[in-house]
């Protein structure tokens, strides 16, 4: 059947198509219809990604579900899709979150509903495209296209300082991407006119060029991750974005950067990666420790979770650049888990914000008295964020620490401080918001979460616990691919 052989295209274009359909419903008079179509599109978008998991061959690191058609013959650009053990999980993660985000914005978004829903659906398709592209130009097109819906989401439905945040987000990311474009054109010339990413992997590149290419990719990916000195757009964007925007930013967009390292930087410039690994590890550790401390000082819940995200992503880049299987698998698991946990935390903060319209920790206190069910869910996610064993947060962090220990004791030591800082900032925030006496009238009038919210949180809670107790379904997918990548990266490419 035609669908079976085009699953990846379906995962990309189905949500986009539904996004356009939602747009066609027009103004807010038709909001209920827009919501319904969006929901159907999001759920269908998730369903078509399930056969990817079911039909995935775990024993090979070769690309699967490949589709390859000519696109712009003049520059040898192809519509070439395929996934391996690394990209597959992210497509699932992304498609999994789209229905949740649609559901989370169901009641809250009242203005320009159709555009809001459409932006998320289109975004979802584009992000799948980023993860599935095997052609560098196709990748770049999806990569940049991702900016447009996110820019609008932050700018149209965001908080008071949204314009500043949206423009900062856009320009920061664009700077990185444009340098990557120059690097891609260089690789195109060097490879004799090809944009095949897999060809770049096996192509010999001199050391100086490798370093320049690595740096160009680094600017693009480090902004997205974000890594330590270029992270400042993230707290702004998160604070101003609507809940759904924050969720997608934290759960999906940040992963795109780390994925870039694995798909481009490491295999294309392995020697440069080894040479610059020290810098990368240092930046990662700064993110883990310093940003962890910064998070401790936040008075705004969203900012706190944003900084916590940067700190956790520091773990991911650390795991990638210590070049062993523990580290890399840990990094990948951490990415998936962080997707679930940070997404859940932002949704939880969104629940509070929708009721009280404040993100300040000081405006809350004693929420548990009024919202016991919510408090329980929030507790679980806070624990997962601090890496409690039995939750998904633990698996990745533990593996990365083990990997770091194999590389250097002090790496592991510094990285492990996150277990303390993470617990400190998350639980301290939790304590101030949830426990204690009812702080003010706003809190006194809170009502517990609705059925719709319960559904969202239950799904996430089950995933977080499931992944913490039994991570094998996640790790077995990536196992072979990670090992082959490490073998590949260990070989020099002069």
């Amino acid at each position, binding site marked *: 059947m035609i669908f079976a052989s085009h699953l990846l295209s379906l995962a990309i274009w189905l949500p986009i198509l539904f996004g356009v359909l939602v747009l066609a419903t027009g103004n807010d008079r038709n909001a209920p219809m827009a919501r319904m179509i969006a929901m159907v599109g999001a759920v269908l978008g998730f369903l078509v990604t399930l056969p990817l998991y079911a039909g995935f061959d775990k024993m090979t690191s070769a690309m699967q579900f490949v589709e390859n058609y*000519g696109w712009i013959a003049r520059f040898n650009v192809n519509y070439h899709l395929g996934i391996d053990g690394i990209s597959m999980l992210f497509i699932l993660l992304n498609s999994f979150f789209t229905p949740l985000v649609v559901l989370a914005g169901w009641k809250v978004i009242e203005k*320009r509903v159709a555009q809001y829903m459409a932006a998320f659906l289109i975004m979802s398709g584009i992000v799948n495209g980023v993860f599935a592209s095997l052609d560098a*130009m196709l990748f770049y097109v*999806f990569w940049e*296209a991702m900016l447009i819906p996110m820019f609008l989401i932050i700018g149209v439905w965001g908080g008071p300082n949204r*314009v500043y945040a949206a*423009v900062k987000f856009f320009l920061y990311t*664009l700077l990185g991407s444009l340098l990557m474009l120059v690097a891609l054109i*260089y690789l*195109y010339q060097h490879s004799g006119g090809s944009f095949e990413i897999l060809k770049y992997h096996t192509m010999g590149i001199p050391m100086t060029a490798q370093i320049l290419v690595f740096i160009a990719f680094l600017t693009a990916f480090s902004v997205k991750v974000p890594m330590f000195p270029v992270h400042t757009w993230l707290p702004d964007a998160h604070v101003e974005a609507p809940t759904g925007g924050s969720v997608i930013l934290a759960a999906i967009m940040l992963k795109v950067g780390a994925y870039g390292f694995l798909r481009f930087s490491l295999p294309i410039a392995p020697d440069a990666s080894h040479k610059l690994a020290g810098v990368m590890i240092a930046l990662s550790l700064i993110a883990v420790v310093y940003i962890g401390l910064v998070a401790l000082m936040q008075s705004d819940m969203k900012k706190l979770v944003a900084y916590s995200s940067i700190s956790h992503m520091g773990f991911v880049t650390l795991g990638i650049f210590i070049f062993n299987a523990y580290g890399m698998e840990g990094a990948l698991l951490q990415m998936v888990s962080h997707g679930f946990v940070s997404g859940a935390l932002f949704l939880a903060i969104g629940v509070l914000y929708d009721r009280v319209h404040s993100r300040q920790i000081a405006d809350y206190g004693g929420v548990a008295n009024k919202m016991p069910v919510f408090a329980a869910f929030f507790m679980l996610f806070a624990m997962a964020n601090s890496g409690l064993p039995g939750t998904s947060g633990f698996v990745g962090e533990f593996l990365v620490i083990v990997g770091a220990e194999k590389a250097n004791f002090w790496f592991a030591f510094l990285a492990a401080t996150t277990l303390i800082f993470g617990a400190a900032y998350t639980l301290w925030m939790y304590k101030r918001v949830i426990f204690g006496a009812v702080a003010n009238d706003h809190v006194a009038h809170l009502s517990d979460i609705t059925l719709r919210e319960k559904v969202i949180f239950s799904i996430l809670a089950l995933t977080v616990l499931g992944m913490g107790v039994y991570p094998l379904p996640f790790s077995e997918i990536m196992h072979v691919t990670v090992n082959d990548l490490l073998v590949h990266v260990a070989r020099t490419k002069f």
Partner: protein
Amino acid sequence: MSFLSTLYPAYAEIFLLVMTCAILIVDLFVTHKDRTLTYLLVQFTLLGCAMITVATHQPGVMHLFHNMFVDDLMSDVLKLLSYLSVSMALVYSRSYLLTRGLFSGEYMVLTLFSLLGMMVMISASHFLTLYLGLELLSLCLYAMVALERDSTAATEAAMKYFILGALASGLLLYGMSMLYGATGSLDVSTVSDAIKRGVPNKELLVFGLVFVVAGLSFKLGAVPFHMWVPDVYHGAPTAVAMLIGSAPKLAVFAFVMRILVDGLQPLMEHWSAMLMIMAVLSMAVGNIAAIAQTNIKRMLAYSTISHMGFMLLGILSGNIEGYGAAMFYNVVYVLMNLGAFGIIMLLSREGFEADTLEDFKGLNQRSPWLAFMMLLLMFSMAGIPPTVGFFAKFAVLQAVIAAGYMWIAVVAVLFSLIGAYYYLRIVKLMYFDAPESYEPIKMQPDTGLLISINSLSLLALVLIPGTLQTLMSVCAVSVGQSLLLH
């Protein structure tokens, strides 16, 4: 063979001239205020020109009038695109001009004469023919800028345009006379052969080249000869600014190709160095100055300067790929420019010009569709995929890097980043801000349809497989063929 049948490569020009004169007379008898008959005749003429150009096309290169006129694939493609953009410009500007009482027979006749000038430029293979075409084009444009007699801004703009334009023409002629002195000919291919054989006085040649490049860059609006662009765009009626920014750029591109690339190929090391400075400066000045503008026409003027700088990059890379990329860039630029001005005119009403940035506030709430069209145009101008503007930039960058100018590519990319800011600002105004008036936007069905096609094509060219490839190949092949002249 009869004399007439030997003229067939120039049939389109002849037809246009005859029809224009006919329209001039017919219009005298049109009493109706909205000039429907004249307008339809003009559109019919453009269609006729297109059909003739297609019908008289044949493979290979044809010379006519003692080598003064050339007909090749590049000229046919550029002419067809010029008809298209003039015709689109007329559709967009019709109701704008009608409400201002400017939609007169003269306007249309001047438009057609300027088109004739462009066609002569596109097909010129002799310095004098080039000059003739250029002057015909420029004189019509000067008059059109001043068409709104009561407006001081328009008069001032026309005056500036005229004086600076005359100066640039003078520079160009002066440069041509030196080339003539050094090589003894004004025929493009003879000049090229003479230089290749070696001329005794190389200094004279290079000196002449400097003047020619200066004259050219004035017409392109590249820094440091860009001063007129913002004033003219700002002062002229929007419809005229749109015309100046669209089809003539195609003609000037042909001009650059014929003079620099064809005629003065042996002096490439000299002119490419000059173009390099102009290109980098244009991108810098255009993109940075655009940020400070509050008038959208002025902003688009600076954006034009930066786009021309980017286009020059393709030419200075000095290979066929680069020329093809430059042509493609130019075509895409014209398309975007037409759309952007079209939307500005749509938002204008009787006695009200929608030419400040503020007028775009909250457009998404007044008309989501129009806002989305403008969004596509802005992202395309900024060069953000998946719009075609990105692929235009990409093709040029690719040629520049292939020619070994990695640093220029990085500079170009950084200036595009700065440029992205002011395009984003329009998107921000349309989507993030509340509108100042909720007055409904009146749109003629034909204008609305054309605007939609125009903007959606920026996306469709990329998303429909094969179309982008076709357009790029047409550019590359046609430029390549015109270079095989020698």
